[in-house]
């Protein structure tokens, strides 16, 4: 049985080996991320069947759990690792031909370390280890946002760094307080001792950790960095940030709230926060003229929708939230990749410059509209089953409050439909400006990656059953706190 620690160790080893490979030959390092992501994908797929029945606890260093760092490879963790590997693979293929200028070897190293950080956060069972891998994820995304070195990129990276650093400092303070209170860092151990302390002194570390992780998870007041970072980063990086980084941050917040603190009383607050994030994200996106900035704001909206789903804390709502998360990863990555080459072709990021792109780049525009349709949640695409699950879980609560909040969230999706269709219209039905519509397809590699994402979106959209079952077991794993503690501390 392959051990989950390989998911982190092998890509990290390859990342460390990259400078040596670069010394050997200039062209080889570009393919190392592909190898690492493919390896991770295979390991994750092989792990999923065993993990669906019982989580795999991997002890690092050979000591019994509370005294060592253990990797908790539950259904959620391994599914996330698979998703990270899949999106990483697709975007690495895209980046092969998209990233030409600048220190490309360092780009690929940072890209791989970003994926290692994400996989680490998702698999670890130790609070401080979560902080360390979270830092690997954050610092590599600061550097990658500033990769092009233009005015916008550097400004966005500086702002993202300062906010991220404040977030990490708060997170570290929270972990310090937790250690002070309970004397242990293992998540399951903390979870088992959480009751032994008064209410206020449990809440302050929770508040610190939630706001620390919330900065990366782009919850409403803390996500001021996201529009700048995702719109001025290179498109492959915006895709990986929107597709993976914020989802991993959100997973960390949810894991801390559900499993470690078991703070069931904070859900009502999260519910309102989620709805607020949806409305904020969608309204701001509606007023945008820059295509990538619009996609960034729509990511905020989608994250709000996922937080709304998680905050309802029933198995169906968690499954819906995870499904929506999968939808957002695949379709937002596809949108950013397609937008990347459209901007490359049309020269500017303004939506008006995308007019008539349907003729000039037919396949990329088709990919873009697939992504747009699936994010809005139209039937044959992956967005529909996830929206269906979220609506079902909200209505199953049979309370007028939830129906009202669901109304606001659906209003948000309506506004989202409005601005996405506005762009699809501009691409297909507006005449492009002066020069004749010479048809120039994007180069082969990006088309392959867009094709893979498009096929996935449609296939899971039409036949969502296996994914929905796997996600409902994952949801019950997230919800079932006692099983988590029991399996780790047995």
């Amino acid at each position, binding site marked *: 049985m392959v*051990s989950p*620690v*390989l998911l982190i*160790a092998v890509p*990290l*080893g390859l*990342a*460390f*080996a*990259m*400078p*040596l490979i*670069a*010394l050997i030959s200039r062209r080889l390092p570009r393919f190392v991320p592909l190898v690492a992501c493919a390896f991770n994908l295979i390991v994750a797929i092989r792990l999923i069947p065993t993990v669906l029945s019982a989580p795999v606890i*991997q*002890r*690092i*260093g*050979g*000591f019994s759990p*509370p*005294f*060592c*760092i253990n990797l908790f490879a539950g259904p959620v963790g391994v599914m996330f690792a698979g998703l990270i590997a899949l999106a990483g693979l697709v975007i690495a293929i895209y980046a092969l031909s998209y990233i030409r200028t*600048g*220190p490309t070897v*360092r780009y690929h190293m*940072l890209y791989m*370390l970003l994926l*290692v*950080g994400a996989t680490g956060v998702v698999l*670890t069972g130790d609070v*401080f*280890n979560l902080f*360390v*891998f979270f830092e*690997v994820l954050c*610092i*590599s995304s*600061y*550097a*990658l946002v*500033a*990769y092009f*070195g233009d005015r916008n990129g*550097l400004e966005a*990276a500086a702002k993202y760094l300062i906010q991220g650093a404040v977030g990490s400092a708060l997170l570290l303070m929270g972990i310090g*307080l937790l250690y*002070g*209170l*309970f*004397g*242990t*860092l293992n998540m399951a*151990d903390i979870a088992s001792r959480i009751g032994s302390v*008064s209410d*206020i*002194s449990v809440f*302050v*570390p929770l508040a610190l950790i939630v706001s620390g992780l919330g900065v990366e998870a782009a919850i409403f007041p803390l996500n001021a960095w996201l529009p700048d970072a995702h719109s001025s980063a290179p498109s492959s990086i915006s895709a990986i940030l929107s597709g993976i980084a914020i989802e991993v941050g959100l997973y960390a917040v949810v894991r801390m709230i559900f499993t470690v603190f078991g703070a069931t009383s904070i859900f009502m607050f999260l519910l309102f926060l989620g709805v607020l994030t949806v409305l904020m994200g969608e309204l701001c996106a509606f007023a945008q003229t820059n295509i990538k900035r619009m996609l960034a704001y729509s990511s905020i909206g989608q994250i709000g929708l996922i937080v709304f789903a998680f905050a309802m804390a029933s198995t169906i709502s968690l499954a819906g939230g995870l499904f929506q998360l999968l939808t957002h990863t695949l379709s937002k990555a596809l949108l950013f990749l397609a937008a990347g080459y459209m901007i490359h072709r049309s020269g500017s990021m303004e939506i008006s410059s995308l007019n008539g792109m349907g003729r000039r780049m037919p396949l990329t525009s088709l990919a873009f509209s697939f992504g747009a349709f699936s994010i809005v949640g139209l039937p044959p695409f992956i967005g529909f089953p996830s929206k269906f699950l979220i609506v079902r879980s909200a209505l199953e609560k049979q309370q007028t409050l939830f129906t009202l909040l669901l109304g606001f969230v659906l209003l948000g999706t309506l506004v989202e439909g409005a601005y996405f269709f506005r762009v699809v219209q501009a691409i297909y039905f507006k005449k492009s400006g002066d020069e004749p519509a010479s048809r120039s397809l994007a180069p082969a590699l990006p088309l392959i990656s867009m094709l893979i994402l498009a096929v996935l979106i449609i296939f899971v959209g039409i036949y969502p059953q296996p994914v929905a079952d796997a996600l409902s077991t994952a949801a019950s794993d997230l919800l079932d706190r006692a099983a988590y503690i029991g399996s780790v501390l047995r």
Partner: protein
Amino acid sequence: MRVFLSLLALAVIALGIAMTLTDIPFGKPKADIATHYVENGREDTGAVNIITSVVLGYRGFDTLGEVAVLFVAAMGLGAVLATGTRTPKANGWEPASLVLYTGCRFLFPLIVLFGAYIFIHGHLTPGGGFQGGAIIASAFLLTYLGCRGRRVHEAWSSAVESLGGLTFVVLGLAGLTAAGHYFLSAFLPAGTLGQLFSGGIIPLIYIAIGLKVGSELAGVIDRLVEESQ
């Protein structure tokens, strides 16, 4: 208005944390996990310095992450500064006097030796890979300040960095495949307590980390300095 608002917010947070601190009395006896580490730290990992046994033995994965963070910082710095424009010739950088020049050249090997001593004896005396590496980096810093023009060789520093990281991961994987099939498990003999050759894989890792941190921080300073000449 801004100062008042931030002071108010900080006061509220301070109040909250003070309420929590009442549950963490200063100097209270250690929890069960820490007593376990202190009591059988020496048998489990063979290191006399319990902090090193915690850093590399019990919580070795943190340090692996830590090494990855430093690696990311070095690469990120290279990526950000590589595309920079050459700043104009830094004025007012007159060459160092002879005394300073020879002093630096004389002190450089000594500091490096001291740094090496620190990380080789990581498991015996206080200090370890990170502190030794920092001292080596400060040796390189001294050469930049003192004698201009002497720069760390780019290829060498990146080779040492990647070799250091690679040995750490390979030792971990070796632990996975060889003994007790756990990542980073101590598969080398623990040797006699308190001696130099004791503590299983801990000294090896600390040497690798020491060299890696040294070359990385030196590389960081080198890239920051290089553009101002």
